[in-house]
Structure formats: C-alpha cells, structure tokens
C-alpha cells in the first residue's frame, strides 16, 4: 500500500526486489496532516481495489 505520490517509488522498489508485478493499492496523498475522517474515507475507498487485487473480483 502506498499513497499516490509514492506509488511509482513503491513499484521501483518492488521491481528491484525482483517482484515487478507486485499489486499495490494506492490512496490519496498525503496521510500526514490529514484528519481522521479523511483517513477513514480513503480506507473505505481503497476496499474495493484491495478486494479486486486479492481475489480478482470486487
């Protein structure tokens, strides 16, 4: 899991570790300085994508 600003870096690190196809869930950047309600909203919006990446279907 990464925020949008670090999605490319997460993919780069995964590739250098030999797993370029790592499934990455991204949430809006930033998390720091974000209130709790916004964090929960981001988590809610990430659920569908997470299920899709884990199971192949939402």
């Amino acid at each position, binding site marked *: 899991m990464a925020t949008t600003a*670090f999605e*490319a*870096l997460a993919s*780069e*690190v995964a590739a*250098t*570790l030999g797993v370029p196809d790592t499934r990455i869930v991204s949430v809006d950047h930033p998390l720091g300085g974000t209130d709790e309600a916004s964090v929960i909203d981001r988590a809610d919006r990430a659920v569908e994508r997470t299920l899709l990446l884990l199971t192949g279907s939402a």
Partner: protein
Amino acid sequence: MTDASEMLEVASADPDTVRDVFAQRGWGDGLPLVAPTAERVDDMLAGSARDPDEVIAVLPPRSGMATRRIIAVNAVLAGCRPEHLGVLVAAVRALARPEVNLRGVNATTHPVAPMLVVHGEVARTAGYNAGLGAFGPGNVANAATGRALRLILLHVAGAVPGAGDASTQGGPAKYAYCVAENLDESPWGGYAASVGVDAPSAVTVHCGEAPHNVHDMEASGPAPILDKVASAMTSLGSNNAPVSSGEFFVMLCPEHAAACAAAGWTRSHVASYIHERARIRAGDLRAAFALRAWAPWQEALPDDSAMPVTEHPANIRIVVVGGPGKHSSVIPSWGMTSSATVPVEH
C-alpha cells in the same frame, strides 16, 4: 540478491565522460567520476589482503551484494586511495547491522544520511582530518571516503532518489559525510573503546541529520555550554522529539570538551547532564504531535512536566571533533535507527 558488477567500455576515461555515461544509466552522484578501470580497482584492492569477492554485506532496498571488489570500484569512482579501503569496508559492515535499520534509513522521507566517524590509528595513518574543519571541505580522506559510502548506497543499495530513497528534500550530507575523532584532544579517551570496541582502528556509522551548530564563547564551565547543546536538541521540528528513542551525537570541540573535563566531568556525566536538560514541556510536545501513540509513561506526565527528547542518557553519544575555537555540533538521528561501531580489518 543482486551482483552490481558489470564491465563497460567508454570512449574516454575523462571524469566528465564517465559521469555522463553513468548518469545515462541512473548511476553516480552528479559529480565527475574517476574511471574504475580494472588496473585502478586492482590497485585499490591492494589496500586489503583479504578475498576481494567475499560478500561483506547485502544492502537494502535493492539487496545489492557489497564485496570488497564492488566496494573498491566505488572507492575508485569517488577518488579514494588504497589506504581508505579498510575504513570503507568497515563502514559497509556497520551499515548492514540490523540496529542501523538501513532499509528504513533509505526509505524515509527524512533527510537522513549515514555519518561515518573514523577512530584510532587509521585516522592518522590514512590521513583523515580530525582537527580544524574536520567535517570539510578540503581533506582527501574525509571527502573521498564519505563520497564512496554514498556511491555504494546509490549503486549497491539502490538508494536512488525516487527509486529507493524517498527523502523529501534530500540534503548536502547525502554527498559525503565522514569525519575523524580527535583522539589526541579527547580528555576521555576514544569513543570506540567507550562503547566496547577495543581495536586499534574502528568506524562508527550514525544515521542522522547534517550537523547543528552549538556556539559558546563565554562559559568557562560545563553547565552553560551543555545547556546550549541541550537547547539545540529540543526543537519541536526534530524527528527525535516525537520518536523519543533516537540517538544524538554530540560532537564536542576540544575546547568545550576540555572545559567539561577540567571541572571533573566524565563522558558519562556530560551525557547525563544533557539528558536531564534536553527536555520539552510535555503538554507542548503532545499538542504538537497529537496523533502519535505515546508510551504510557509519556502519556501520564502532567502538561508542565519536562519530557526528555530521548529516553536514556546512553542515547547521547559524546565524541571530540574539530580544532581551535568554540563551536560544537549536535547530530540528531532519524529516530528509528541506532549507531554501530565496528573494528577496521587489517
């Protein structure tokens, strides 16, 4: 694990050409590079009698293998001399120690860089500067060894900005960060021995920020000097403030160290005093970091209590560095890392 070795043919060994060829591959630190020809690498390896292909460490995030040969290649690129190789090999060993947490050091958005401190005989025999201007510039050993360690992080560990190093602003300490301990003017003996490393030569790696200056030209005794050290450590913007378990390296200049020792203060006394004085009002700290999961004892402190910026005096490390004058420095760590001191191999 990744073996970083590869032979390249270039039209010219000119440092600018090498820099540009490397840059096309995403390598280098942006400065001209000495061509690491096979002959130069062999000459560099003459600085060690040991197996050039022994794996010294596997460095994250790229899981690159650092052999003596690979370390020597980067030493050549940076402008090192063979007598610097042993220091560099020891520094790589130190970086790979689990308590250093190199994966975290490279992954964080903080501007952390490994500071390399050279202790003992090798500082003298290999020409490291422990005196005036020790942090630089101008000394070949300090500059080239510090630069070589960064090149190893870039080329072997894969700590390339945006691809393996997430530092928001980066920092000048990420180019070269190497200094020697001024053993001749340390009133308390060497730092390495004080942390249990009894070797003729040793290195310490501390992953921290660039030095924060501490200026005192007025006090003749320890307390006022060390109060200013404590003041430099108690910034709400420091990572250590909310992390609370990080180390601080306090690099005392010889004159400040002598003032402490003349009053009968040991290295341990200095650390204990600073620990007592480097504190932030608990209410202010908790208000500034409301989302942090404070430890129960920190949560229990009344607002007007003074909370230490690091939990134990042993996290305050005292080293004597520099020449004449009354400027010391504080080097806060990133927080989630501990320093490592290792012997330099013969």
